[in-house]
């Protein structure tokens, strides 16, 4: 793989990123002040709600805010209602070395889980402005133990998200995790599965601004594509432990759910099949799919291609959940094994509101009666 390849493949990313970079004409930097103002207003409103005894309504808003940000547009009333019904408030909290980590809440659809942590730093730390860039939680966020087995394999994502509480020393941290799908295995999340979060030390990696300016105004003066040497980079960004300690949490999901099988008999659809990990181009071919299970945050396709299959169209089309009101939710390719393809949605798909699934080749998979 070369820089050229990387630059070209970047063009394949979801259209939502093209849209974001095109439509956002004012960067977060210049809107920070107004965001802060709006956060303050939000905080005042939240405080008022608390005072009139509506604390529960505010507490349950964490995941709604998160998914609204993910969506980039307001969620439907059905999605909001789904989140409110299914958000599990955890409320565990531990403080070490002046830093408090709270496991706020969680939601799962049986095979995908979201956990939201609230991080409170000492008052003189401005996490809101620089948290995502400078601070790191180190540890294991997705250690799962069920009654019968230890679920080790999986994939996920964790990162900082805004908490909109108006306080500069607090920020949320979202973990998304899905254990690897294994044909015939029960769904991984449910009342018997314990989730362990182990955080060991909070690190800070700040930019050495003085040294940076020295480089930009000296050695690299006038250059657009600055490429620092490894030695310079190490000096520019040094990691230090900002809070020492261990934060350990364990909790169990209070609900389980299962997906909906859409197929009563196998269907042939087109997909890209890869039979060799080193293949440069895959063959676009007919694939017999034997199962399509739709979940709130994901979908799983079982097929008989004996290949890793990606269900996209030549022009970057994705699988879409077409809702009864005509709106669509993209379900993107996530991973593939020889007989299974896993797809993800970054916002909830309310299953009762789905009219049908549209495959990228145009094949329609209706919801069962």
């Amino acid at each position, binding site marked *: 793989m070369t820089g050229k390849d*990387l630059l070209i493949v970047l063009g394949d990313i979801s259209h939502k990123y093209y849209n974001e970079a095109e439509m956002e004409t004012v960067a977060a930097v210049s809107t920070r002040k107004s965001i802060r103002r709006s956060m303050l207003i939000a905080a005042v409103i939240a405080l008022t709600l608390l005072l009139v005894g509506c604390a529960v309504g505010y507490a349950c808003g964490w995941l709604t805010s998160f998914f609204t940000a993910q969506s980039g547009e307001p969620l439907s009333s059905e999605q909001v209602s789904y989140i409110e019904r299914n958000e599990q408030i955890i409320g565990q909290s531990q403080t070490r070395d002046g830093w408090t980590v709270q496991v706020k809440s969680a939601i799962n659809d049986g095979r995908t889980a979201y956990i939201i942590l609230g991080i409170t730093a000492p008052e003189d730390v401005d996490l809101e402005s620089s948290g995502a860039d400078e601070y790191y939680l180190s540890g294991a966020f997705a250690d799962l133990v069920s009654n019968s087995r230890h679920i080790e394999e999986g994939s996920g994502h964790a990162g900082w998200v805004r908490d909109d509480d108006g306080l500069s020393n607090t920020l949320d941290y979202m973990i998304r995790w899905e254990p690897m799908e294994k044909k015939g295995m029960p769904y991984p999340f449910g009342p018997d599965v314990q989730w362990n979060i182990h955080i060991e030390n909070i690190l800070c990696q700040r930019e050495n601004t003085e040294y940076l300016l020295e480089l930009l105004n000296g050695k690299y003066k006038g250059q657009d594509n600055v490429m620092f040497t490894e030695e310079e980079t190490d000096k520019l960004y040094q990691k230090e432990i900002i809070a020492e300690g261990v934060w350990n949490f364990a909790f169990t999901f209070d609900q389980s759910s299962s997906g909906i099988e859409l197929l009563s008999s196998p269907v042939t659809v087109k997909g890209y099949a890869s039979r060799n990990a080193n293949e440069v181009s895959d063959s676009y071919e007919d694939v017999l799919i034997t199962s399509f299970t739709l979940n709130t945050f994901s979908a799983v396709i079982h097929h008989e291609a004996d290949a890793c299959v990606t269900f996209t169209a030549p022009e970057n089309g994705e699988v879409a959940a077409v809702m009864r009101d005509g709106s669509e939710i993209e379900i993107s390719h996530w991973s593939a094994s020889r007989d299974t393809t896993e797809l993800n949605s970054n916002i909830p798909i309310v299953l009762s509101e789905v009219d049908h699934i549209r495959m990228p080749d145009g094949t329609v998979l209706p919801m069962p009666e």
Partner: protein
Amino acid sequence: VEDAKILDLFWERNEQAVKETDTAYGRRLYALSNKILGNPEDAEESVSDTYMETWNTIPPKRPKYFYAFLAAVCRNLSFNKLDWRMAAKRSAEVVALTQEMESCIPDRRQDAEMDRRELRRILESFLESLPRESRLIFLRRYLYVDTIAEIAARYHISESKVKTRLHRTRKKLHTYLEEEGICI
């Protein structure tokens, strides 16, 4: 004309769809293609090809973000048309971008071929992990091929801030690709 109406025209197979698309987005698409190709005639041809591809794709497709769809098609067509040797000779911006991207690739994977869609998944996951501001700057540079000065002007920030953000993001991408390489 609103995007939804232009899309309706495509679905009705009304050729006015292409004219309306050109009126609404032609200049932006031309600018994008010209940044990649550095040749006005080739850029015009790429934009025409973009309309042809769009005409052949809609229907059955109905993209959620119409301009994003057009830009993705136009970018890919332009890169397909690019003569890299000529670009290197005239020190085009796109050559600088490839050098910058080169710094994101872990050494041990320089020669490794990767499944294109797997790489796309990794890149999307990486973009999700970025703060919004860094993501926007990164996308403007490597998706829309903007110069440092253009990005600085667009977001009302200094050029050195753009450079450092980009450097930091490239470093993160390097680490991200390295970590992903372990489990692939």
